[in-house]
Structure formats: structure tokens, C-alpha cells
């Protein structure tokens, strides 16, 4: 009687309590993403009567069901208003370039006094207006107000406006603004409702490009949901980019197979600070980055290039590129202290006998960047230096590598590998080139949306599978710190989902990062190893030889007691009668 509970207590495993019911709730993922859009009508797009009805707010909801456990709903809150005076000025002002042109034109006119040149005023005005480039307008609008993370401002400009080139209907700026040219149908006065109905699909199209789109979000959920290979591009995008991680390590390596001929100098520190660091600083809310660099001598590519006699160059064709990486990878070191994923960027300078080396695509055309990248690994660029010296040069030749060109390629590869979306914009759209930071604000927003969703999805999968696993395998000891991690993961997840609903992108990303860290730490805790395994037949095999001999006299005496008691009762009965 004493033995059984004692035995039970000593052989049970310690399992701390886990919030299983909350985890069950989380397994049904219902994500709601909200985006705020402001649509600003500039002068000439709305009539004064329509202007009186503005400002106006509309909300649209879209529901999508991905699979039985995952549902997505998108909420767009659109606020329509008219442009302020300062915004009008910014949209119409002539730029310095326009003014200079005007000045030089007037100069020429004044010089040619004797010839009769009649210049129509409209010509001059249109000259000035066309010089006010959309980029300048974008910049000046940005100085007026800064839109918060995750929101968008769309300026609707009249059809006749020359802010955009002729065939472009939408211009997407570097910050979070876009210019939308109103359609021809809207020239004649229409009611506000018709105007809004006309604007809605076009604004939606802009949103698909600048904010989240359904394909992107489902691609981000690929960890949780088995995707059918429908949209190749988004799958390719998701397979190319690294999985979400709290930190990344970037390694730049210079491969010099021929130090006897080339003595290479590259100002990697300065170049990394000038060109790459702005991007990394901008991406700081998404992940931490650490950069290092190295130079490898006598490092050869694993593939021997072919000589193309027609162009007298050496070529590497696209099929053989896949075999280049493995032999080189073994030579590359990595930072032993951290376990973040590593992005390797290699700059290969071909040796003097195999210069110049060009990469050819499948159509046997030279690739202009002379570089290739491997998804989730990094990129390699081939830099030819044979132009830097003539045939009579004394070896070794000192060569300074043009870091701007090299970093241009690496930056583009870095963007692709980090998941900044690269698919081309729809027709009629003009996307501003990204500035010195290498990343437009809306691209950062896109990345943050998909990262948050990915983190939330992964964290929920991890937590639910951990709960399921611990349920299934009863022998694993659950310590208190694991229970703590799980609880904190659950709380962070709930917060992240709430923030996504309310549209606070920055906070949502932060909470989702905390959630994923805590959940991964809990799942991969070294103590969760099921080393104790007592199969039933082995348990019987151990305990029976020990306890059976002991139990036999006990059982017999119990039987004797029972039969005695029964006998006594029978006697008592007999006595009574």
C-alpha cells in the first residue's frame, strides 16, 4: 500500500505544466493583416462638389482560406482626401533643372536678337513642367510628411499632368508614395461613387506591388502549408531567400588563384561601409548582420573553363556553374562563434592564363554582370583584370579593384538572397531605382510583412508540434525553463497576431521575432531527449522476478484472512439462528 505510490513517484518523469489549451487555439492560425492607404486627390482630379464630400474613409476586407488550419484576411483602410496646398506645390513645382533649361533658353533667345523666333508660352510651360521629374516631386512630398511603417500614400494626378512620362500610369517612389494617373474616362464629371469605384481596383493594384499580396503571404507560409506548385515565381522567390533568422553573417572573399601574376588590392572595408552598410542599417529591424572578409590564395574553381575561339575568351556556361561551389566552399572559413546563416560573396579574379573569363547563359550570350548566385548560399562574381595591363607588364602586377562595380553586383545579389522581391512590376508601372541605401521603404515594408507572417507561422508550427510531441512521447522530462519558454512564446505570438491586426508592422515584427526565438529555444532545448524508454515487456521482465516471490505469501495470507472472516461470519450466522 505504501509501496505502490512510492514506486509511482520515483519512476515518473518530471513534466512541468504547459499551456496546452492556448497552444491548441494557436494551431488554428487566423491572421489578419491591415494596411492603411491614403489616397490624395490633387487639383484637377475632383470637382469642387466632390471635394466637399471628402475626406472619406472606406474599409475593405478580403478573406482567404489557405487550408483547414490557416485562414488569412486582409483589411485595407482607405482614406480619401484632397491635397493640401503644400502638396500641390510639391507636385507642380518646376525643378532646378527646369529652371536652368529655361534660363539657358532665354539666354539663347536674347542672343539671337536678329532672328525672329516666336516661342509660344505653352511650349515653355510644358518644358518646365516636364523637367519637374517625378523623383523630385517624390522627395519634396516626403519632406512634408513621413508615412509610418506599413502604410501607403497614393497621389492621384490629373491625366494631363506631365509629371509622369507618356506611357506610364503609375510611378512608385522610393519612399512609401506612389503617383497614379487618373484615367481618361474620369475627365467628364462623374459622381464621387463612380470615381471611387474606378479608383479602387487601380489602388488595389498599387497595393499588390507596394504592400503585401496574397501570393507573397502564402509563399511566406510555405513552412506551414504544403504548397501546390501553382505560382512558380513566388515559389522560386521563397526558395531563393534565406529563411527568417535573427541574424545573418555576410562574408566577402577574394579568390586569387594566381598571386604570381596579380597582386590584388581591394578596399573592402571602405566599400562595405559605404555601399553595403546603409542597406544593413536600414534592414536592422529585420535582422542583425555581421560582415567579414577574407582573401584566399591559390583557390581555383572546380570547373575548367572552355576557350571560345570566336571571341577569344574563356567561358563558363550555365550548366557547369553548379559544380563550382562545392570545392570552393570547403576552403571558405566561417565564424565558429555564431550559428547564424552565412551569405558568402566571392570575387574571383581569373589567373593570367585563363583571362578573360565570361559567364554565358543558356543562349550562349554573355551575362552582363558576369556573376551568378546560388539560393540560400551566396553569390560569385568573376572580375577580369586583363585590361589593366599590357602584354609586356612585369609580373606581379598591382591591380586596384573597382569596388563600386563589384559592390553593385553584390548588393543586387544580397537583395535577392534576403528576399527583397524581384518580380517585375505590371505594365504601365515605373518603379524608382532604389537609392544609396539599396532598398526602398516600401520594399522594406514588404519584407517586414512577409517576415512577420513567416515568423508567426513557423513559431505556431513549432509550438504546436512541440506540444504534440511531448504528449505523444510520455518519457521526455519537461523542465521548468522549457515551460517558461513555451509560455513566453505563446504570449509573444498572441501579441504579434494582435499587432498585425491593428496594423503596427514594427511591433508585430518584433513580437514575432521574440516568439520564434523562444519557441525554437524551447523545441531544441538539449534536455528534451527521450533517453528513458521502458517498454512494457521489459518492465514486466524486471519486476516479476523481484516481486513475485514476495507477493506469494502475502496473497496466500490475504486469502486465509478472507476465508477466516467468512468462516466467522458463517459461525455468527449459525449462532444467531
Amino acid at each position: 500500500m505504501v509501496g505502490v505510490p512510492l514506486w509511482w513517484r520515483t519512476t515518473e518523469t518530471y513534466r512541468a505544466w504547459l499551456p496546452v489549451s492556448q497552444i491548441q487555439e494557436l494551431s488554428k492560425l487566423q491572421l489578419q493583416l491591415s494596411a492603411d492607404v491614403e489616397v490624395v486627390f490633387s487639383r484637377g482630379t475632383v470637382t469642387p462638389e466632390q471635394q466637399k464630400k471628402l475626406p472619406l474613409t472606406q474599409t475593405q476586407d478580403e478573406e482567404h482560406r489557405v487550408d483547414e488550419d490557416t485562414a488569412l484576411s486582409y483589411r485595407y483602410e482607405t482614406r480619401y482626401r484632397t491635397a493640401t496646398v503644400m502638396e500641390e506645390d510639391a507636385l507642380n513645382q518646376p525643378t532646378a533643372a527646369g529652371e536652368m533649361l529655361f534660363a539657358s533658353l532665354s539666354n539663347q533667345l536674347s542672343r539671337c536678337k536678329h532672328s525672329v523666333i516666336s516661342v509660344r508660352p505653352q511650349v515653355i510651360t510644358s518644358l518646365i513642367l516636364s523637367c519637374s521629374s517625378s523623383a523630385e516631386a517624390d522627395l519634396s512630398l516626403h519632406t512634408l510628411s513621413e508615412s509610418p511603417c506599413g502604410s501607403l500614400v497614393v497621389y492621384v494626378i490629373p491625366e494631363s499632368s506631365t509629371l509622369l512620362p507618356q506611357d506610364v500610369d503609375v510611378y512608385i517612389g522610393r519612399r512609401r508614395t506612389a503617383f497614379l494617373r487618373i484615367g481618361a474616362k474620369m475627365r467628364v464629371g462623374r459622381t464621387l461613387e463612380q470615381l471611387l469605384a474606378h479608383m479602387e481596383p487601380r489602388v488595389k493594384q498599387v497595393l499588390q506591388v507596394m504592400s503585401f499580396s496574397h501570393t507573397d503571404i502564402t509563399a511566406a507560409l510555405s513552412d506551414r502549408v504544403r504548397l501546390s506548385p501553382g505560382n512558380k515565381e513566388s515559389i522560386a522567390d521563397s526558395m531563393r531567400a534565406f529563411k527568417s533568422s535573427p541574424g545573418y553573417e555576410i562574408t566577402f572573399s577574394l579568390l586569387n588563384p594566381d598571386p604570381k601574376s596579380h597582386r590584388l588590392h581591394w578596399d573592402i572595408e571602405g566599400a562595405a561601409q559605404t555601399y553595403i552598410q546603409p542597406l544593413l542599417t536600414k534592414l536592422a529591424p529585420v535582422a542583425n548582420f555581421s560582415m567579414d572578409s577574407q582573401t584566399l590564395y591559390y583557390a581555383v574553381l572546380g570547373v575548367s573553363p572552355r576557350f571560345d575561339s570566336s571571341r577569344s575568351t574563356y567561358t563558363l556556361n550555365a550548366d557547369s556553374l553548379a559544380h563550382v561551389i562545392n570545392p570552393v566552399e570547403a576552403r571558405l572559413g566561417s565564424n565558429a562563434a555564431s550559428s547564424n546563416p552565412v551569405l558568402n560573396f566571392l570575387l574571383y579574379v581569373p589567373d593570367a592564363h585563363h583571362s578573360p573569363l565570361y559567364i554565358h547563359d543558356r543562349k550562349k550570350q554573355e551575362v552582363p554582370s558576369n556573376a551568378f548566385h546560388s539560393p540560400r548560399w551566396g553569390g560569385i562574381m568573376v572580375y577580369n583584370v586583363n585590361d589593366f595591363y599590357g602584354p609586356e607588364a612585369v609580373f606581379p602586377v598591382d591591380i586596384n579593384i573597382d569596388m563600386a562595380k563589384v559592390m553593385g553586383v553584390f548588393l543586387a545579389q544580397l537583395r535577392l538572397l534576403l528576399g527583397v522581391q524581384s518580380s517585375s512590376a505590371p505594365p504601365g508601372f515605373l518603379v524608382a531605382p532604389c537609392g544609396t541605401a539599396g532598398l526602398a521603404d516600401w520594399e522594406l515594408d514588404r519584407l517586414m510583412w512577409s517576415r512577420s507572417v513567416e515568423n508567426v507561422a513557423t513559431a505556431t508550427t513549432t509550438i504546436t508540434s512541440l506540444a504534440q510531441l511531448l504528449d505523444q512521447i510520455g518519457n521526455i522530462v519537461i523542465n521548468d525553463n522549457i515551460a517558461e519558454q513555451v509560455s513566453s512564446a505563446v504570449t509573444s505570438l498572441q501579441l504579434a497576431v494582435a499587432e498585425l491586426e491593428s496594423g503596427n508592422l514594427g511591433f508585430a515584427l518584433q513580437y514575432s521575432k521574440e516568439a520564434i526565438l523562444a519557441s525554437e529555444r524551447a523545441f531544441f532545448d538539449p534536455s528534451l531527449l527521450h533517453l528513458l524508454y521502458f517498454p512494457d515487456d521489459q518492465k514486466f521482465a524486471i519486476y516479476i522476478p523481484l516481486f513475485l516471490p514476495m507477493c506469494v505469501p502475502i496473497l496466500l495470507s490475504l486469502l486465509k484472512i478472507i476465508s477466516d472472516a467468512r468462516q466467522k461470519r458463517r459461525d455468527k450466522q449459525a449462532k444467531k439462528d
Partner: protein
Amino acid sequence: MLAGVCFGDEPCLLIPSRKTTIKHANVLIFFLFSQENAGQFFSSGHTNNWAVLVCTSRFWFNYRHVANTLSVYRSVKRLGIPDSHIVLMLADDMACNHRNPKPATVFSHKNMELNVYGDDVEVDYRGYEVTVENFLRVLTGRLPPSTPRAPSVINEQIHCWILPLHSYTVVSYIKCHGGNGFLKFQDSEEISNVELADAFEQMWQKRRYNELLFIIDTCQGASMYERFYSPNLMALASSQVGEDSLSHQPDLAIGVHLMDRYTFYLLEFLEDIHPASKTNMNDLFKVCPKSHCVSTPGHRTDLFLRDPGSVLVTDFFGSVRKVELTMETINLTGHIKQWEESAADGEPRKETYSYSDQLPVSEIIHQKPKQKDWHPPDGFILGLWTLILLVFFKTYGIKHLKHIF
């Protein structure tokens, strides 16, 4: 002359702590994990394959186990899986064993034709590090944070566990001794088939593999995959329950058997595979029929979602990286900023560096003994004393109490 040594193993009892003396069950758990089997985009289907090759037998007479594992390692490397994606666990060092007549070599073919222990063998777990615990830790990723990057494999997500995961193909090849329902690790430990199945289930839950191929070469190998229940697992074993796996060729110069039959024929099969070949799994199942192997190889495919006939051998054994050509570049026009001198006073800041004390001897020598807190005697001691006192007073009667106090 050493005849084919695998007969007459002793009966395996199922009590965990007992040392097993089974001679020949070579367990080759040759796990092949496969990632990314959505082969529709990009050109080839397999990008990220991992291999876990385990040999858990010690001592010189188990030379063939190490030779087998190393030959499989060579094949896997030849077909494209890089070292960074292979976890190789060898329980004993045959190449530098003092009984090896040709040191620094391990041969897998008689007449010493092929030295499988070449220059670029990277062993991740060796000697006594090959334990059940480490094996399970590698599979499930629950490694302590101090594990360096190379052996911890499989996770490219977040810190401590560095094994990549998410759908890669893993090939697991285990070579050791075993019995009905368990594998022997290094003569002192065992792992049972239920534990292995649980480990795979944990891997599945975390999506650490997309498809997994499990090859085991041991006596009664089929018992090891009986208990699997996770999806997308394919298993091959060299012998059925109740049969032994036998070894193949003795070498008279080295004095031990060099290979086991199943692995020998498996490797012959793999030699014909090159990265572009189209042989599928059904051919792999036919390797080593009973006439060659004496034991009957078995396989299990019911948990595998795809039809084995459509699965290429290179899906598991080979690995070709996907590459894309970089079509866009960014035009950078700024000049590189020059570094300015940091200190305002013009002097460079001097930081003296010193090595940290590796062995703080002075602290150790002059350490005072730790003050141990006094705890009241716990239940057991109290109970024991109570028992003794009770027995004493029962025997001698209570009236003697005053004589004591």
C-alpha cells in the same frame, strides 16, 4: 582462415542494460534526408541533401564496419553531397590502429585495391563520441549551444542547432551490430527501434526532413524499421528478422574481413550511378538478392508518399546546387568614404590586449572549502533510526529506556 563469420549469434534479450555480444549485426543506418522535392522550378530536383553515416562498432575485428561506412561516404561525396552536409560518425579508428599492417589506410576491397581513407575524410564524431545520445541529438537537433558548426549540421534557422532542416533529403546509413529490435552502440549502449521511430517523428514534426531514406546493414535489420510511423520514410535493411547479415571477403594480409555482403553489392550498384543517371528506387531494392547475400534484404515503402518507382536514386544520394544567373545590378556612384582618425586628440587609442588566464592556478590553490549548508536529516535517515529504535524497544521493553538516558 577466417570463414564467413556471421553465424551463431547469441540470443538477444530485451533488457536494456545488458551488454550484447552479437558479433555481426552490422548496423548501417545510412540516413539520406532529402530536402526540397518540389522539383518543378529550377532544373534539378535535389538541392539540399544530407547524409548521416554511422558506424558504431569498436575493435579491430569490426574493421569491415568502418570500411563499409567509409566506402559509402566516398560514394556519397562522389555523387555531389559536400562535406558540410555529411555527418560521419566512426566509433573506432581503424586506420591508426596498431594492429593495422598498413597504417593510415582502410581498404574496402581485397588485395588492397582501394584505400577509402584518403586525404579528405572528415569525421565528425569519432571514438567515444559516438553514443546513442549524440546520435539522437544530431538527428533531432537538440545540441548544446557549445557545439561547433561543422558536426551539428542540419539547421539553418536559428542558433544552437545548426542542422539545416526543412525538407532536405537525408540519407542515413548505420552500420553496427544489432538484434531484434535494437542496435548496439559501442558495446555498452543500445538504441531500440521505438526510440529511433520517435526520433524520426520528432524530425518530422520540426520538418527537418522532406524525405528520408534509411539503410541499415545489421543482423535482423528489418526489425529496426518495423516501428516507424512518420510519413515520407523509406527503409532498407540487409536482413529480415531472424536472419544474420554476413560478411563478404576476408583479406589475408590485413587479417580481417573487409566488407559485408549487403554493403558490397550496394556499393557496386552505386558505382554505376552518376549525377545524371535515372535509376530509381526499385532497382535499389533489388540489390543483393538472396543468392549473393545469403540473407534476405527487406525494404519498407508504405510510409513514403511518392511511388518508389518514380524516385531517382540521385534524389537521395546526389546533390547539385541550384544556381541562377544574376541579371540585375545596382548602379553605385558614390565614392568610398575614407576613414577618419577617430580620436579628437590626435593620438590613436591604445588598447592593451592580454591573454585571459587559461588555468587560474592561484584561485584553485587558495580556494577555501565551500561552506556546506546544514540540512536536517532527510526522511530516509529518520526512518531508519525510527525503525532501529522501534525494534530495540520492542525487543527489550520500554522499561530499559531510563537506563539509556
